[in-house]
């Protein structure tokens, strides 16, 4: 192509881009494709899909706006970014709903097609914001994306409505050009996705190419941007979302234990994708049962575990509430069961598509009686894989239900992942009992289902079909060893304490602390999906000279054995959470440490700058820094490249999922 002007290529180390439009505009798909292009280019990245629970809210309204944010960089990053550098708004509502997040100076690429007086009025604009000057602080690129899309696909003879539906691909093409993304994978994707609808396939590909070429030939853009691939540890990488990683981790865990996997589940946001993914994996000895309700889902899983499979159930908070009684039964039966809680904003139905981590106390204590069970939490999308493998190890080794905590942000977010070598994952022996394990007073061989391994306290597990070992178990209190019904006071006390001791005694790795020179006085301790924002906040504080240590809990029950000692080492412990201080409550109760809780429950991940300010202020206060000229919190929060370049000694950045 002949261009009249030379396009400058500007180097950037990181970009945050947000696609926003109507729920029906295909913004999630557009974001997914841009992510795939970016991943295959080799940038580090982190994503944040954000969409309403309504499938198709009325078009053009604020509640119907769906968005997808992607942060990509030439270095190791930890979060999807606090604020977009570029916003692509497909209609006035998308502009209005997202503008408050966009800092001045950022670029707004706006589809002007829907900026009619009627549409504007509907969302509360009396005048067209493109004409009033109210966007002057931004770099505004108004384009009739819909009109150009329709024009670009006219040869396919589609209705205007159908033709305009390809506008997301037009926009994707344009942005792919702007950031020099490789486009082959998107064209292949469109060819496969619409293979059975040639008109739609060709129109989408044509629109995508037209958008790319528009960037190349039009003179709207004088600059293209380049974000070089990130330096990461050597290996094979792929991009993966939390729910997919969780599904694969469950299959890997079952396979390493040599057990078939039986999932019982009922659809619920944001957990349903785990059911969808596992239902495709029948060739891996995965059976999925879409049950009539949440209770039946966990019931079927527990029934399968009784039969010698690995029973798994997946849900979100409201479903976990319904499953509580069955989980209590699993505690009593002492059978393996993996329960995944993909948390969402509560209470009750809450905000189904928004994230939160307020189910911690529910999963710890939400059962009648003393019913302890292990709890593990994932810290990033890719980390859901390792968390599921670990949950399976604990469930099978200790014959216990295990809670896996993820959340909506991890479930739908994605990041590059260094693909693990399956053969290197630990194996677990279910160690089924096949012979009598004791003798009775007459000297005859018998099977005692509640005879325990002295080290793990795991009970003997004989499955139906094993000759001579038939036995009955149930929810009634059992006599030690025999498992017979017992109302004996001393026996009940013993069994309660034994079940507790079994969970308390689970071996978990020690907590690792990132304290660069070992002199920090403030520790920031988190769990779950706050890992990224906390890490980014700590980097910002360190960058402005503050000393801070960071640690993150995978194991919430039992806690790592060294946790008490770690907490005691620091003058102040800050615990940021997306709840009102649930981990803080547990730490105070168990370790008598006066932790500082930072609690935000907005349905969105914590922001890095926000945390930097909180951490910086606490460091300043704790260190006794009394300098009017130097405010750590403010300085850390206002850093523009706060997450950049946490250079490891060897100069290699570790992708976050690999930790």
């Amino acid at each position, binding site marked *: 192509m002949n261009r009249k002007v030379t396009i400058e290529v500007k180097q950037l180390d990181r970009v945050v881009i947000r696609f926003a439009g109507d729920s029906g505009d295909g913004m999630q798909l557009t974001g997914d494709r841009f992510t795939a292009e970016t991943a295959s280019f080799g940038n580090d990245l982190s994503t944040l899909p954000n969409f309403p629970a309504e499938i198709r809210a009325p078009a053009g309204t604020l509640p119907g706006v769906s968005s997808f944010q992607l942060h990509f960089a030439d270095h190791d990053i930890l979060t999807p970014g606090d604020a977009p550098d570029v916003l692509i708004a497909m209609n006035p509502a998308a502009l209005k709903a997202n503008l408050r997040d966009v800092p001045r100076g950022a670029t707004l690429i706006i589809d002007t097609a829907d900026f009619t007086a009627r549409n504007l009025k509907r969302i509360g604009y009396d005048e067209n914001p493109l004409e009033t000057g109210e966007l002057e602080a931004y770099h505004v690129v108004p384009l009739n994306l819909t009109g150009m899309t329709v024009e670009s696909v006219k040869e396919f003879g589609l209705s205007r409505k159908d033709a305009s539906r390809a506008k997301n691909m037009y926009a994707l093409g344009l942005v792919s050009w702007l950031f020099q993304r490789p486009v082959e994978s998107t064209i292949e994707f469109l060819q496969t996705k619409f293979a059975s609808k040639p008109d739609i396939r060709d129109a989408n590909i044509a629109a995508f190419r037209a958008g790319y070429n528009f960037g190349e030939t039009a003179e709207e853009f004088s600059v293209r941007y380049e974000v070089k691939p990130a330096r990461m540890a050597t290996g094979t990488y792929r991009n993966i979302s939390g729910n997919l990683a969780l599904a694969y981790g469950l299959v890997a865990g079952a396979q390493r234990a040599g057990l078939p996997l039986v999932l*019982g589940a009922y659809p619920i946001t944001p957990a349903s994708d785990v059911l969808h993914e596992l239902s495709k994996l029948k060739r891996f000895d995965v059976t999925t049962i879409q049950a009539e309700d949440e209770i039946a889902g966990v019931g079927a899983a527990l029934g399968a575990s009784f039969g010698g499979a690995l029973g798994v159930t997946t849900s979100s908070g409201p479903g976990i509430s319904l499953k509580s009684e069955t989980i209590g039964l699993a505690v009593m039966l002492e059978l393996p069961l993996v329960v995944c809680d993909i948390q969402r904003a509560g209470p009750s139905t809450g905000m189904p598509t928004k994230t939160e981590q307020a189910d911690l106390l529910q999963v710890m204590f939400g059962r009648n009686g003393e019913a302890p069970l292990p709890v593990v939490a994932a810290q990033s999308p890719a980390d859901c894989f390792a968390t599921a493998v670990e949950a399976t190890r604990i469930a099978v080794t200790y014959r216990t239900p295990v809670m896996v905590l993820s959340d909506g942000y991890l479930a739908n977010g994605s990041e590059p992942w260094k693909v693990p070598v399956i053969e290197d994952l630990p194996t677990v022996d279910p160690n089924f009992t096949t012979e009598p394990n004791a003798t009775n007073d007459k000297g005859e061989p018998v099977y005692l289902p509640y005879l325990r391994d002295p080290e793990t306290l795991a009970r003997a597990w004989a499955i139906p*079909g094993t000759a001579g070992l038939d036995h009955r178990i149930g929810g009634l209190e059992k006599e030690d060893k025999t498992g017979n*019904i017992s109302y004996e006071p001393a026996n009940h006390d013993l069994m309660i304490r034994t079940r507790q001791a079994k969970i308390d005694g689970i071996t978990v790795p020690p907590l690792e602390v990132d304290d660069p020179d070992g002199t920090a006085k403030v520790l920031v301790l988190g769990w779950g999906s706050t890992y990224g924002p906390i890490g980014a906040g700590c980097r910002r504080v360190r960058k402005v000279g503050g000393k801070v240590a960071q640690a993150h809990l995978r194991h919430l029950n039992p806690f790592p054995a060294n946790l008490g000692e770690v907490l005691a080492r620091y003058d102040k412990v800050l615990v940021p959470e997306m709840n009102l201080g649930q981990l803080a409550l547990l730490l105070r109760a168990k370790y008598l440490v006066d932790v500082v809780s930072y609690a935000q429950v907005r349905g969105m991940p914590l922001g890095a700058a926000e945390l930097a300010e909180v951490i910086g202020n606490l460091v300043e206060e704790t260190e006794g820094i009394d300098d009017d000229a130097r405010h750590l919190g403010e300085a850390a929060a206002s850093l523009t490249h706060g997450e950049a370049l946490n250079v490891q000694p060897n100069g290699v950045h570790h992708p976050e999922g690999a930790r």
Partner: protein
Amino acid sequence: MSTVDLGLPSLPGGLHGVPAATEPQTRKEYVSDQEVRWCPGCGDYAVLAAFQGFLPELGIKRENVAMVSGIGCSSRFPYYLSTYGMHSIHGRAPAIATGLAVSRPDLSVWVVTGDGDALSIGGNHLIHTLRRNVNLKILLFNNRIYGLTKGQYSPTSETGKVTKSTPMGSVDNPFNPVSLALGAEATFVARTVDSDRKHLTSVLRAAAEHRGTAFVEIYQNCPIFNDNAFDAFKNPETRDDAIIPLVHGEPIRFGTDGHLGVVRDGFASLAVREVADLPGGEADLVVHDAHTEDPAYAFALSRLTDAGILHQAPIGVFRSVERPAYDDLVRQQVATAHETQGTGDLQSLVTGADTWTVD
């Protein structure tokens, strides 16, 4: 969304896939070492004795029998049988048994439940299990009362029943369990009585042989909280006129000297008439066909049951039709996936198609 031809297989028997016993078994082998703790005179004793006597004749390995129960008096059943068993939680036995049956085709899985367990707290699981046709045998002990919680009305208690929780009489309209099961399109539905061991055993036998969910309602007397609820069926003076016997291929005729019979009566209904009053005599009677595909016929039969105090009700197999069992279909899909896609390679799955390498 689209539908797929599942290539439905012809049905094997209910015990297909369950390993056969190598030696003849005795009733005693099925009696566990646990002391039976039902109230003296409870109908559960008779059912337990019949069941323990019946199991050996199935000729399957004892360790391949699994009993799953919920909560209630009847749900203590598994403790008294020397088979594998789980005494689970209230109402959930069908869901738990579904997971067990799906993952273990080599087991004969039985669910023991009661009117409260199955029809009140567990109603949802019951209807969905019946709709799916999981290869389970469900024994519903119906005593029309809550026994274990000491005497509240149940979802099968007659309207007006005075109990501890209904001093002025229950205002609830009761379920007819057989009608409910048929409404869920259960493939095997039967009713029997605790005290008639021969009939009970014959129904259990037919249930065991059925592929899919077999639903058996057992009228069971609670001597403490609802004594004589089924007296009409047990009293020699009334029982001949009370029991409407269902025998496949036979005209439905009963009563002292066979003076009563069942005839078609208007749109999709059946009625009991004096045979002597029928213009065609016995030729006008309905000949029972349990294999009728349309559940409307069996449903009409089920409506001959009194909703209030029981004076008359059909006993026997209402419906026995073939439909593929859920668990067979689920396993078939897993097998098909292995055949058509090959057994999965986890490393290549996890790696995926879209990767890049950092050197």
